[in-house]
């Protein structure tokens, strides 16, 4: 019985391992024929026409769109998320801490399709003026440039980034909060006893000790933003010639959203091409997540 139990648990652990390896192998196996039939370079081609004769598709524009929207989302979300995390760990009265934790978790629990729906019908119309304002006055900011006469705003990459920012915020906030809370109370008290203000105590005692944790929280948020599919697919109006201009009304596209929107009409080579692009997304998120976990793990062991 003892041996059987032990064997059973070992078998299930092995199964988890084998399934992942087998599935990864299948993914590569299905992607290869489509890649072979590609008449353009998969890495540099910007168009996505796998079902044409000859088939032409590449991930250059998609990868760029994925990274630009995710980074823009982080730029918007990280300051707010760190503010929330600091509020919960440093400023909030004890009675407020737990409810605030629940509320941020709830923000993370709302399904992404609901965020997408809300983004299209609520946010985008109300953001139009803001987007026009940004295009008119802040076009010197990188990626905010617009060509005169081109339609601005609407379901742009910027709108998608804002929705992504809202979705990434609770993850970054929750992990950073955990990291801040781990800093021993005595360190804060030592700083305060030396006459530091609250802000100085945070800057001297809390932030340096939690830097690795915060970096990995941001990277985990990045991983989430890179892979987010449905919200982006709903909010973004994808263009045939993708660009990286955040405020253009018909902007670019992301890998994940491209899979969701092209899958329904894809033929056999089309599906293979989408699987190949998914493999690239998998590789990118894998690197981001492994780095994030490595930082977090090293930090935890040192502590």
């Amino acid at each position, binding site marked *: 019985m003892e041996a059987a139990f032990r064997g059973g648990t070992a078998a299930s*652990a*092995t199964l*988890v391992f084998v399934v992942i390896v087998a599935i990864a192998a299948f993914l590569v196996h*299905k992607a290869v024929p489509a890649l072979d039939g590609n008449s353009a370079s998969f890495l540099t081609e910007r168009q996505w026409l796998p079902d044409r004769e000859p088939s032409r598709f590449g991930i250059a524009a998609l990868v760029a769109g994925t990274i630009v929207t995710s980074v823009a989302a982080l730029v918007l979300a990280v300051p707010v998320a*760190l503010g929330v995390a600091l509020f919960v760990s440093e400023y909030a009265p004890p009675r407020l801490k737990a409810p605030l934790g629940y509320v941020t978790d709830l923000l993370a629990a709302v399904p992404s399709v609901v965020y997408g729906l809300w983004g299209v019908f609520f946010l985008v119309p109300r953001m139009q003026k803001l987007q026009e304002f940004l295009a008119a006055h802040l076009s010197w900011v990188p990626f905010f440039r617009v060509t005169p006469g081109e339609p601005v705003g609407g379901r742009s990459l910027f709108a998608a980034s804002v929705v992504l920012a809202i979705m990434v915020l609770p993850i970054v906030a929750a992990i950073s909060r955990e990291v801040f809370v781990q800093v021993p109370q005595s360190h804060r008290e030592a700083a305060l006893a030396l006459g530091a*203000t609250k802000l100085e105590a945070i800057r001297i005692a809390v932030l340096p000790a939690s830097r690795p944790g915060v970096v990995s929280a941001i990277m985990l948020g990045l991983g989430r933003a890179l892979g987010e599919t449905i919200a982006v697919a*709903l909010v973004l109006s994808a263009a045939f010639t993708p660009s990286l201009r955040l405020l253009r009304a018909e902007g670019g596209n992301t890998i994940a959203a491209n899979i969701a929107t092209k899958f329904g009409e894809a033929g056999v080579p089309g599906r293979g091409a989408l699987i190949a692009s998914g493999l690239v997304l998998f590789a990118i998120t894998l690197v981001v997540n492994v780095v994030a976990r490595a930082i977090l793990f090293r930090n935890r062991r040192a502590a």
Partner: protein
Amino acid sequence: MTVRLAAPTLPRWAPVALGGAAAALTALLVALTPAQGRAGTLVVFLAGYAAVLTVASYAVEGRRRAADRLARVLIAGAVGAALTPLVLVLGYTVARGAKGLTGYFLYHSMRGIGPLDTHGGIYHSLLGTLEQVGLAIALAVPLGLLTAVYITEFGRGRLAAAVRFVVDVMTGIPSIVSGLFVLAFWVIGLGQGFSGFAASISLAILMLPVVVRSAEEMIRLVPDSLREASYALGVPRWKTVTSVVLPTASAGITTGVMLAVARVTGETAPLLLTAFGFDSIRRNPFKGPQSGLPLYVFDQATSSARGAVDRAWAAALALILVVVLLYVAARLVTRRNRLGGTS
């Protein structure tokens, strides 16, 4: 000559008075410049308040106190900025979806609903979601529990390290990639075609790492003295695990499982590639395409049919209710947790 022992500070009423001043300033700005809308006004007011307070504090209390006050205002602003979207998302969904969420809507499918019809419902997708999530639980929970037991109780060698790495890798898998996995492996590779069960596999892949992680954490929290007491009574190891360790950790594990269920219930992307979507009721999850609640929302949101948008909102509200119920239930179970875990 008097010696001042304390640095000068702003009186307690100063923030309130300065808030009033900032409000007056904002009103003036809004009146003089073209109207900017409610959100714009609020932003102008907060920026004005932060500026006025910082300047006043700088003049009276010095640079360090001023920075501290500014930080407080900014952090409070961040909390407001984080809560606003939550309130708006939930509020707007209720406002748009409540009137569509009727008994008729719950008990009818989309079979035979043409592009001009405004009726139709979610029965088929609700059924699909229940079946898909139920099967995903049946796949992921036993496998995840056994794996967690292996890692914590038995695993020392290379296999445990490899499995732990794979679980870590799985945690970061984007949901659409899990859908693609199943598409390549099950739907196309093994020629099984689209089905609710294919969706269950992809949801189980997303659930598995969460289940393993939370079970692992909870099992590690079980005090060794409990295990030792059990061994001292001559209870074999497997029996100790099944009747001492797992029951002690059960509340925490249940919370982890329910949070994982709440998360995958709202997943749309994998369903798109595995269940594909279907307009009629299909009870058998193993054969043929099926709908699911999140997929239904997505389909209706991207449809140009009349009434589709209203159906999307009503279904979104139903989906939020399901997810929030699961979430609240998970939190209630946590209260029973005797181990005091944090997840």
